[in-house]
């Protein structure tokens, strides 16, 4: 059984059809990258997988670990093992980072019928992961993402992923806006989490991130459809040639 199976997925945002028949299968242990020009539907796909309900699925199916993902609320999908690192992580004044992380972990443990973590169980793992992402523990007593730099926000997303240990991690343009040092740290964090029972879906516009995280598969999304799939070499090809050829192939121009 595949970890994730997307069949002929169509989705709309505010009445506009963005995804026009996406097919994609991801197995445990694999790292896939979805690339494509702006407006091709990459982020929409990520949001649909995270079950954001402003993105309406009009037809198609998504099966995650044998269950119908489209039946799940965002929190259920999260507890089942879906994690999306946000392109624009949200600032939440008044909710502390560490508190939030522990609440999230405990919500998932409760879902799985496990005992809640107390502070003593939580702290060692937390410190280890903070180290991995070279983050200052002081940041964690502050409110979620509040006053964080762009790079700190992205690292915080990866920290959350590292703590929540999802089955499928979707990274929505995690590389965008990062300087090279931050990119290396984020990539190190992501690589450390690669494992045979975890899959990753890297949504990105550029090849840059893929210099550090070599994917098993690269898919090119243009105008709501995957127009080509291949190995890591496809990303290099795209970097050199741009997306013009792919758009020509589908007969679609670059969306405005």
């Amino acid at each position, binding site marked *: 059984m595949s970890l994730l199976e997307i069949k002929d997925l169509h989705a709309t945002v505010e009445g506009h059809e963005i995804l026009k028949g996406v097919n994609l299968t991801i197995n445990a242990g694999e790292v896939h990258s979805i690339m494509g020009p702006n407006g091709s539907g990459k982020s929409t796909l990520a949001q649909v997988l995270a079950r954001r309900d402003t993105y309406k699925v009009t037809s198609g199916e998504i099966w995650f670990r044998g269950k119908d993902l489209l039946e799940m609320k965002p*929190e259920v999908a999260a507890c089942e093992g879906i994690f999306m690192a946000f392109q624009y992580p949200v600032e*939440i004044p008044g*909710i502390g980072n560490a508190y939030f992380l522990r609440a*999230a972990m405990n*919500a998932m443990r409760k879902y799985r019928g496990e005992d809640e973590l107390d502070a003593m169980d939580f702290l060692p793992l937390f410190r280890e992961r903070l180290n991995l992402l070279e983050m200052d523990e002081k940041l964690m007593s502050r409110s979620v993402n509040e006053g964080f730099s762009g790079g700190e926000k992205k690292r915080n997303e990866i920290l959350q992923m590292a703590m929540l240990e999802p089955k499928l991690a979707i990274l929505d343009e995690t590389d965008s806006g990062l300087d090279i040092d931050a990119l290396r740290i984020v990539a190190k964090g992501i690589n450390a989490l690669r494992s045979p029972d975890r899959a990753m879906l890297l949504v990105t516009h550029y090849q840059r991130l893929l210099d550090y995280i070599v994917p098993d598969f690269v898919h090119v999304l243009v105008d709501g459809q995957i127009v080509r799939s291949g190995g890591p070499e496809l990303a290099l090809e795209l970097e050199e040639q741009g997306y013009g050829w792919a758009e020509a192939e589908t007969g679609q121009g670059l969306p405005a």
Partner: protein
Amino acid sequence: MTIAPEQLGNYLEIFDNLQKHSAAHDPGWLRSLREDALVRFNEAGFPTTRDEDWRFTNVSVLAQIPFRMAASEHPAVSARQIELYDMAGSVCQMVFINGRFAPQLSRLNNLPAGLEVCSLAEAVARDEEGVKLHLGRHANTRRDAFVALNAALWEDGAYIHIRKSALIEQPVHLLYLSVGEDEAIMTHPRTLIVAEAGSEAAVVEDCVSLGDDVAFSNAVTELVAGDGAVVSHCMIERENDRSFNISTLRTQQGRAANVASHSILLGGSLVRNNVHPVLAGEGAECLINGLFIGAGHQHLDNYMLVEHASPNGSSRQFYNGILDGQAHGVFHGRIIVHKDAQKTDAKQTNRNLLLSDDARIDTKPQLEIHADDVKCTHGATIGQIDENALFYLRSRGLDEVHARKALLEAFAGECVGRIQQSAVRSFVENLLQDRLIGIAHATPGAPLEATGDETRQHWEEVG
């Protein structure tokens, strides 16, 4: 409509009765204060919405109900029944049942040196100096009919005296229980807090209903903070949803006195909380902090009148409101800077979350500045729960109710965080848990297809 003539008769009769019984032994000065106040009330009657200070709150229902004073005997309330309302870490607890002191339920032993707490009636009988100097000298019966009514009809309340330089670390807990009787009853609790120079203390007034009967509470508290005194006052309204609760806190602050007022309005049907600090001494400071959480048909009106009367004073007003259902909130903040109050620094902020289409907030800042070298700012925002934040929390596994509650808690937490005394803060935090989970449950699946993320009004003015 000011007051129905037949109701006026009702109040006169109650007054006469009071003069013959519980107030029969009042000293002359108090007797004349009461008589004067009654005259004031008769002349003014209850305010109407034509009165600018009452524009958003219609109290005509109060004028129509023939409220009675509670029967002279206490209804049976056991210690067990009120255990639930205990405040952990308080230095003492006074319990009032329908406005009358209940010594058997109170805990007033082993008070620390420098703190005196007794019932106000007892303090009057003992001819306490603080009472003679301050009772009825600050709360203004001429500007407010409810203050006049209280001054005429109060039966009891608390007298809290903190001696010069005494540091009282634990809060004084005043528990006002309203216990239903067959008729709609009213109470007029009266509290006097006298904190002498350099002293420090915290007082919590906590209004609770036992049962679900209609009651009308009209409380007045005078708080006198001597030079350099640091006093914190917390008013908690958590009565049942048929209660009418009007309360007035009038503070008189000496030189460099620092007063914090926290108003936590959670319960009640028609609630009006007046906070009226007068910064009489130079360099006085006050924090007026409030949180109001309404649902159903609750009406929660916060009225502040901050008077800067001397130079170099500073005042900070922060009120956060959460309104659901058809609840109606009011924030009416007046700041008056008198002619001599140069270098005043006054700030006013009101933030509101409206959780339903029918919830309503009226927010009205009002600055009257008669000095020419002052800094006054005010701002207000009205918004909804941030759907992006809600989705973010849910995407990490928190269910919708808990995610919503976490966001409400964070918003309310801004106010709770301003309470310095940890015992009071934890007490309020606990009360909020229940209230917020109720609100978070009550609004599942709020509109996710937002029509514009936030409707926001913001104004900032320096003058």
